[in-house]
């Protein structure tokens, strides 16, 4: 069983696309669609890395990231942020809050794959 990636994203098609890409690369992909309950999910089953969308129903990805970095259990989990808004200040905010990588939609599949790989190996 490969390492676990938790994908927190609410667009079904994007979930499907990323799941496909990462599964093909050998990772186990778990998905979660709701921002509000994301932390519970992480606590219940800590993943090896997290791909986090910014615009989530219930709670913003930034808030979840802040929480993640404030908890000892989760503060070292690598996080890659995804956003469709594509604003520079979002990137800055994400990196300041402790994201390991920030990726703008639409992305190239190989980019996703490569970054997940590098984060997993780090």
């Amino acid at each position, binding site marked *: 069983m490969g390492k676990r990636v938790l994908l927190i994203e*609410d*667009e079904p*098609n*994007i979930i*499907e*696309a*990323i799941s*496909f*890409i990462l599964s093909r690369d050998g990772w186990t992909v778990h998905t979660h669609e709701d*921002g509000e309950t994301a932390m519970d999910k992480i606590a219940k089953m800590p993943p090896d890395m997290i791909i986090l969308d910014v*615009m*989530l*129903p*219930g709670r*913003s990805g930034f808030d979840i990231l802040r929480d993640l970095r404030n908890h000892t259990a989760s503060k070292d989990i690598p996080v890659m942020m995804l*956003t*469709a*808004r*594509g*604003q520079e200040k979002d990137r800055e905010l994400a990196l300041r809050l402790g994201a390991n990588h920030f990726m*703008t*939609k*639409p*992305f*190239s*599949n*190989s980019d996703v794959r490569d970054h997940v790989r590098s984060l997993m190996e780090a």
Partner: protein
Amino acid sequence: MVPFNVLIFAALSYVAILFSVAFLAERRAAAGHSDWLQSPLIYTLSLSIYCTAWTFYGAVGYAARSGLEFVTIYLGPTLVMVGWWWILRRLVRIGRSQRLTSIADLISSRFGKSTLLGVVVTVISVVAATPYIALQLQSVTLSFAVFAQSGAESWDRSDFNATAMWVAVGLAVFTILFGTRNLDVNERHHGIVMAIAVEAVVKLLALLAVGVFVVWGVAGGPAEMLNRIDNSDITLWDQDHGRWISLIFLSAAAFLCLPRMFQVLVVENADERHLRVASWAFPLYLFLMSLFVVPIAVVGLDLLPAGSNPDLFVLTVPLAQGQDGLAVLSFLGGFSSATSMVIVAAIALATMVSNHIVVPVWLNLQSNRQAMMSGDVRHVILLARRLSIAGVLALGFIYYRMSGGGTALAAIGLVSFTGTVQVLPALVGGIFWRGATRVGAACGLVTGLIIWTWTLFLPSFGAGAVISQSIMDFGPWGIEWLRPQALFGITGLDPLVHGILWSMLLNSGMLILGSLLSFPAPLERLQGAQFVNVFERSVAAPAWTRAAAAAEDLLVMSQRILGGREAQAIFEREAERQGLTGYLPETTPEFIERLERELAGSVGAATAHAMIGQLTGGSVVSVEDLIAVADEAAQILEYSNRLEAKSAEQERTARALRDANAKLTALSVQKDAFLSQISHELRTPMTSIRSFSEILRDGDMSAAEQGRYAGIIHDEAIRLTRLLDDLLDLSVLENGQVVLNEQTGDLSALLDRAIGAAGLHDSDLKIVRNRNEEAVMLSADLDRLVQVFINLISNARKYCDATAPELTIEVSRTPNDYYVDFVDNGSGIAPENEQLIFEKFSRVSDQSKAGGAGLGLAICREIMHRLGGDVDYVRRAKGAAFRVTLPKAKMGAVLAET
């Protein structure tokens, strides 16, 4: 026994001492050492000319006849002094700033520098002062007689007359010598003031000495004295309240209006602050003067045979007790009182007569500027003044002769006071009421003068002297309501109270009436403003327009009046002020105004004004000038109003700019949010498209997978297109470029279409309808209407958060409208967001699965507005409810309700 010769000698010596005092004071002042001459103490003592022989001798007589009523004569001035802040300070300030020379000058100056009013006030003052001067002559004569008769000599009528005449002549000489040395009244008469200050001390000491002698020497101490007073009749006299109030008012008013009081209070005032000291020191002086009045009266009544003249108790009591020295001192005290009053009154009256009567007449006789330029004006004025002094004393003497010297001193004094007080309404009105006009003042003064003459002055000569007894009893020509002592049928009043009441009432009434009915001349308005606002206004509006007069002419004229040195100094100062070399300044209105005021100090306001008027070609301020000034003022006002308006407008603009900026910032934030939103909405389907197309390109998958991913790409491409369509749609709707395609259809069918197109196939949303309600034929752009319905239904599909989502479509009708309500069973929309949801790009929830960019409801509302209807959020107990309003007038073209 005091030999008469000794008395004469004492009197002459006293006069010589006064001469010396006055002379030395003048010398000191001329040498520039006038500091202590101008001390508040001297000022206070000079006010003591209020206490004349009438008070010195008469108060005792008054007390012997009428008890404590004499106190009222002291209470009035005390009230005025204590309340100096209210009126005296104002008078002094006005007097100094306007360089007033007399009370007549004040009235004349206030009411437009009116010559007429100056004459009226002068006449009133002279007429009213004449009995008073006669009174002084009488008292001095009587006091001489007392000594003479106490010796071997027996006086007859001619002796009295001769004495009175010599006294009058002596006083005239003294007054002329010291009272007309300076022309400029405002330079003040240091010698005279010093002399009357000395006299003030002498009369106070004399009265106190007699009083001390009476209490301790005759009565045997204060306790004995009080016993005697208690046993005397004096304290039993009735106190008539009306008379008391009248007398207090009268003496207070007279204190302000008496020409001699104006002279010492205002003209001779060197410093406004002296009033502060005088406000307590002078009442104290009055208190001391009145302290022994009652004891002397009581002892006199006890000691002297019945029928003795109580007016002379101050003399006769010491004489009867063999106290010759004290009697001489007392005589000198009375002499002082009389002389100081006569001197100052003569100066004041002479100033008035010369400035308001003689000089104007002289100017008119010469009737051209030549006279002013060539004649020696100073000489003329001084001569006028000297003659006036002689004339005033002559009048006093004549009155003395006519009245026969028989009337009680106090009675004459009160009649005289009442006459003087006729000036009060014009004075008070003039300095407190801007609305008082020349016509009003003239009406009041003349009315007061007539009433006083008829009710008090003429009767004062005694019944039958001027007015026959029958007129007194039955009125002139038998008209009873004109009886001098029962005007308008009012009987039973004390004659004095009656006279005061009517004269003051009618005088004030006419002043007010005349002022209200007349329109003040421009100069009057300027002067009125300066007088009434003397404390507020520092710079007076000049009453002259730019003068045509040459500075040389003005200088020559000024030299004639002020003297060469003084006039040149004024001109040089002004030239220097204007930054000019030499001694001839520009004749600016301001300078002419100042010059006029300087001249007014010598010849009075009216005369100075007339003289300058002649030189400047009468370019005194006219109505036109005033209107010009007013126009200028109006322009300035308008300009400042415009400025104000402008700044208000600028402020408005600034506010608008701030608002606009805030709006722009908000719009910019909105735009950013919108772009961010659009970006999100565009990127999301693009992400799927790109990602799956890459997956497809990579190959290596089952055909089923391939088909599925191609399907996703297709759907997302559609979604992208729809979003772009929405944006374009909204843009078109908002810009009003939409073309409506009107059709007729059944509401039920439209809803069917909408539900079919809302993409409910993979949704558990249950639609609840009542088709019977939906039987409504509509005529509108039905495609657009269906678009709205689709939007509302798919919103319910997207947002209804119930476990078993259900959308009820209800159709209802009012007389005007059809309502189509879309009510779901979810949690609804928070009240604060109810209106927000109709805004563009304002998706309330984060539910990105909503699919749209938050444009749906904005588009719906735009469409409904185009169609003439509306779409609203309706708050219900549960669930989200949207109401589409279809006005029958707009859409109910065909009514086929079943």
